[in-house]
C-alpha cells in the first residue's frame, strides 16, 4: 500500500513540476512568477528559474535515492542492515558540493541585486506615499499630486453584484508614467508600513513612515500593470491596489496637461458656495472612497472593532466644530481615525462632513462650505 501510494504521490509531484516549468499557460490556475516587462524583472525571473531548476534537480536526486532505498532496503524483502557509518570522505564531498553550487548561484544574484538597487541618474522622480488604505502620488518635477484608491464597488466585495474582471485590482486614479525614461520612486508612508508592489516591475519596496526608500524602473512598452500593497497595514490591507499605466511620451504629456487643468478647476471649486444637493452628491462619493470601510454604508460602524457609528453618533450630530476637528486632525483617542486634512481638499471635506450630518437619518440640516473648512484648518 505504501509503495503504490508513494508512487502515486510522486507522479503528481512530478506533474506539478512539469506544469510549473510550462509557465503561465493555464489562465485559472496561475503557477509561476511573471517574467515582467522590464529589464530588471526579466533578470529576476531568470534568476528565479535558475535557482528553481537547481532545487528541482537536487531535490529529485535526493528523492530518487530515498525512494529506491525505501523500495529495496526493506525488511520484508529480506534486506540485512549494513553496518557502515561515519565516512569523512563522503561527508567532505557532500559538504563541498552544495557550497560550490551556492557560490555559483551567488554570482548572478549579486549582479542582479546591484542593478536592482542602482537608482542613480533618473530622468524623473515620483514620490509614493502610503496611507491607510490608499496611495498618494506626487510628481516632483510636474507639480501633480493625487490620491489613488480602490475603485471596486462595495457590492462586488459583499457579493451582491457580479465581480468584474479586475476585481480588487482597479483604482480611481492610476499612476501614469512615460516609457523609456528611468523613473525613480521615492517611497514613504504617512501612517504604518505599507509596501508598493507591481509584480511586472520585478520588485516591491516597503513604505516606512518617516523614512524614504527609493527604487526605480524603466518601461519599454505602453500598458497597464496592476499590483497590491504587500505589507500588512491594518484592516483594509487587502483593498489598496496599485494600477500603473505606461504611456508614450506624447500621451504622457497630454495626461500631464489634463491633470494641470483639473487641478485648476478644483482650486476654483474651493471658493464657490455649494448647494445642499451638490454637497450631498459629492459627499456620498467621498464617503464611499474614504469612510465607508470603517463606518459602513449605513453609518452604523463596527463598534466591536473600534469603529464608532456615525448614525446618530455624538460627533456627526453634535457641534460642527468638533466634527470638523476630528475629520481634519484625526482621532486623538482612536488612532484608527486618520487625519483627513492632509488627504482631502476643502471641497471634498465640506461635502463629506455635510453628507455625514444629513445622511443615515441624522438630518441635522446643517451645511458645511469649503470656506468653513479652510477657516478651521
Amino acid at each position, binding site marked *: 500500500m505504501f509503495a503504490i501510494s508513494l508512487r502515486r504521490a510522486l507522479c503528481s509531484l512530478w506533474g506539478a513540476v512539469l506544469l510549473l516549468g510550462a509557465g503561465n499557460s493555464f489562465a485559472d490556475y496561475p503557477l509561476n512568477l511573471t517574467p515582467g516587462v522590464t529589464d530588471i524583472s526579466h533578470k529576476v525571473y531568470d534568476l528565479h528559474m535558475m535557482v528553481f531548476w537547481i532545487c528541482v534537480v537536487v531535490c529529485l536526486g535526493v528523492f530518487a535515492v530515498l525512494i529506491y532505498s525505501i523500495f529495496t532496503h526493506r525488511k520484508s524483502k529480506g534486506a540485512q542492515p549494513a553496518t557502515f557509518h561515519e565516512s569523512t570522505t563522503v561527508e567532505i564531498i557532500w559538504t563541498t558540493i552544495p557550497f560550490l553550487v551556492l557560490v555559483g548561484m551567488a554570482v548572478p544574484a549579486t549582479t542582479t541585486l546591484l542593478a536592482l538597487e542602482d537608482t542613480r541618474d533618473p530622468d524623473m522622480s515620483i514620490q509614493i506615499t502610503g496611507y491607510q488604505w490608499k496611495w498618494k502620488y506626487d510628481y516632483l518635477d510636474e507639480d501633480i499630486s493625487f490620491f489613488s484608491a480602490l475603485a471596486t464597488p462595495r457590492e462586488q466585495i459583499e457579493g451582491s453584484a457580479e465581480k468584474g474582471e479586475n476585481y480588487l485590482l482597479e483604482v480611481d486614479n492610476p499612476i501614469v508614467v512615460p516609457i523609456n525614461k528611468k523613473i525613480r520612486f521615492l517611497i514613504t508612508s504617512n501612517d504604518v508600513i505599507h509596501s508598493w508592489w507591481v509584480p511586472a516591475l520585478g520588485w516591491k519596496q516597503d513604505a516606512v513612515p518617516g523614512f524614504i526608500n527609493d527604487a526605480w524602473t524603466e518601461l519599454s512598452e505602453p500598458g497597464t500593470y496592476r499590483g497590491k500593497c504587500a505589507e500588512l497595514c491594518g484592516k483594509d*490591507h487587502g483593498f489598496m491596489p496599485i494600477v500603473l499605466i505606461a504611456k508614450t511620451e506624447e500621451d504622457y504629456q497630454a495626461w500631464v496637461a489634463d491633470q494641470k487643468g483639473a487641478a485648476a478647476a478644483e482650486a476654483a471649486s474651493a471658493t464657490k458656495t455649494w448647494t445642499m444637493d451638490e454637497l450631498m452628491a459629492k459627499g456620498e462619493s467621498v464617503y464611499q472612497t474614504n469612510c465607508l470601510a470603517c463606518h459602513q454604508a449605513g453609518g452604523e460602524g463596527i463598534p466591536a472593532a473600534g469603529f464608532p457609528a456615525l448614525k446618530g453618533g455624538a460627533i456627526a450630530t453634535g457641534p460642527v466644530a468638533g466634527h470638523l476637528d476630528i475629520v481634519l486632525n484625526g482621532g486623538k483617542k482612536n488612532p484608527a481615525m486618520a487625519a483627513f486634512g492632509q488627504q482631502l481638499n476643502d471641497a471634498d471635506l465640506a461635502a463629506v462632513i455635510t453628507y455625514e450630518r444629513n445622511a443615515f437619518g441624522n438630518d441635522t440640516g446643517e451645511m458645511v462650505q469649503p470656506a468653513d473648512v479652510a477657516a478651521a484648518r
Partner: protein
Amino acid sequence: MSTATTHDDHHDHRPSGLMRWVTTTNHKDIGTLYLWFAFTMLLIGGAMAMVIRAELFQPGLQVVDPQFFNTMTTMHGLIMVFGAIMPGMVGLANWQIPLMIGAPDMALPRMNNWSFWILPFAGTMLLSTLFMEGGGPAFGWTFYAPLSTTFAPASTDFFIFAVHMLGFSSIMGAINIIATVLNMRAPGMTLMKMPLFVWTWFITAFLLIAVMPVLAGAVTMMLTDRNFGTSFFDAAGGGDPVLFQHVFWFFGHPEVYIMILPAFGVISEIIPTFARKKLFGYSSMVYATASIAFLSFIVYAHHMFTTGMPVAGELYFMYATVMIAVPTAVKVFNWTATMWRGSMTFELPMLWAIAFVFLFTIGGFTGLMMGVAPADMQYHDTYFIVAHFHYVLVTGALFAIIAAAYYWLPKWTGHMVNEKLGKVHFWWSVISVNVLFFPQHFIGLAGMPRRIPDYSLQFADWNMISSIGGFAFGLAQVFFVFIVIKTIRGGEKATGQVWEGAHGLEWTVPSPAPYHTFETAPEVR
C-alpha cells in the same frame, strides 16, 4: 547498558486528583501537561486557521470582516508558535531527556512545575484579547511597529504581558534542560554519546536563552512607546519603525530554529530505529546542528530585504543565508545514508519521519530560493512564503512532534497504537496537507500577497483547492485526538523494548515507564 532499577508505583507520595497535576514536580507528569496544553492550543489555533480558510474559500467577503480576519491570522500564528509547537517540543523534552540520559528527573523540578504553570495563564490572557473592546491583536504574529504601537487596539497591552509570560516560561524551561544535560547524565554517558534528540534540545536551549530576552526587549519597547511616551519605533520622536524589525528578527530567526532543531533530533532517533542501522554520521549531525544554531544569529535580516536596507547589507545577508543550506543538506544526506542499505520497516513513527524528510526538504528548498535577495523582492510577503514556512513548520516541526508521539506513546501509556487507525491518520494528513499548502506556492508566485481576506479572481481556483485541503487536514487532527485517547485507554500491551530496532536507555525501562525511573543511575557501556 544495564536494566534500570524501577520503583514500585504504589509507594509514590503524591496528592491525587487535580492537586497531583498542580503540585507535581515529576518530569513525566509535567511532560504530559505540556503535551496536552500543546495539543489543546493546536486545536484552538487550528480552528482559527479554519476561519481563515473559510474566508478565503471564495473571493469576496463572506464569513468575517477584514479586521477580525487580521486578528485570526495574528492569533493563529502566535498560538501555533508559542502555544503549540514550542510547548509540544518542551513536553517531549520533559518526558524524554531524563529517560534518555538515565536521570531520575529534571535538574530543577520545582522550576519545571512553574515553567509549565505559567503557560495556561499566558495562553488564556492572549486568548482573552479576542473578547476585548476594539478586538484582539490584528497586526500579524510579527507585530511590526507602528501598526502594533500607535495604531493598535487597547488589548495589545495584554498581548505584551502574555508574551512576557511565555518568554519567562521558555527561559526557565531552557535553563532546566541545560542544567539537566550538564549535571544529570548517567555515568558513562559522555556528551558525544548522548542521543541526538538530547543534543538538539541542548543546543536549542542555548538559542532560547539567547533570544527570548531580545523578544522581551522588543515588546517592552512597544509597551513604553504605547504608554509612556517613548519613541523607539516612531520617526516623529527620533526613532525608527525598522528598528523594531531588526530587534524582532534577531529573536525571530533563531526562533524558527528553536522550533525545528528538536524536530531534527526526533527524526534522527526514529530513522535509525526503523532502518535497524546506526545513524550515518553522528558527530557530523551534532556539528551541523551547532552550525545551524550559530548561523541562525547572523542571517536574520533576510526577512527584511524590502525594508530599504543598504545594498551591502543585502549582499551580506544573502550570502550568509544561503550558507544555511550546507548544514541542512548535510542533515538530509545523513538521514538518506542512514536509510540506505538498512533493513526498513514502516511502522507509524517511520511513516511520519519519512514524510518529514520529503516535505521538509521541499520547505528547505523554497527557503533557499527566498535567500536569493533579488528574487525575494518578488517572493516577499506573498503566499510563496506562507507555503514555505508551513512546509517547514507543519510538515516539519508538527510532523516531527506527531512522529515522536507515535514513537514514544507505547512507552508513555504502555499500549501500542492501533496501526490501522494510525495509517488512516497518516495518509489522510499527508495527502490533505499537500493539497492545502502546495497550491500556495503557485498563488504566491502568481502575485497573491499574504494576510489578505479577499483576493482578485485569478487566485480563486487554487484558493478553493487549498481550503478544501485545509478542512480535511484540520479534521485529520481531530481524528488524532481520538487515536491518542484510545491508546491511553487501552490497546495491545507494549513491551519495554517496544520497537525491535530501538536503542537507548528509555527502552530499558518497562512500558508504561514507572512514575520514578533511574533512581539508581544506569551504567552506560
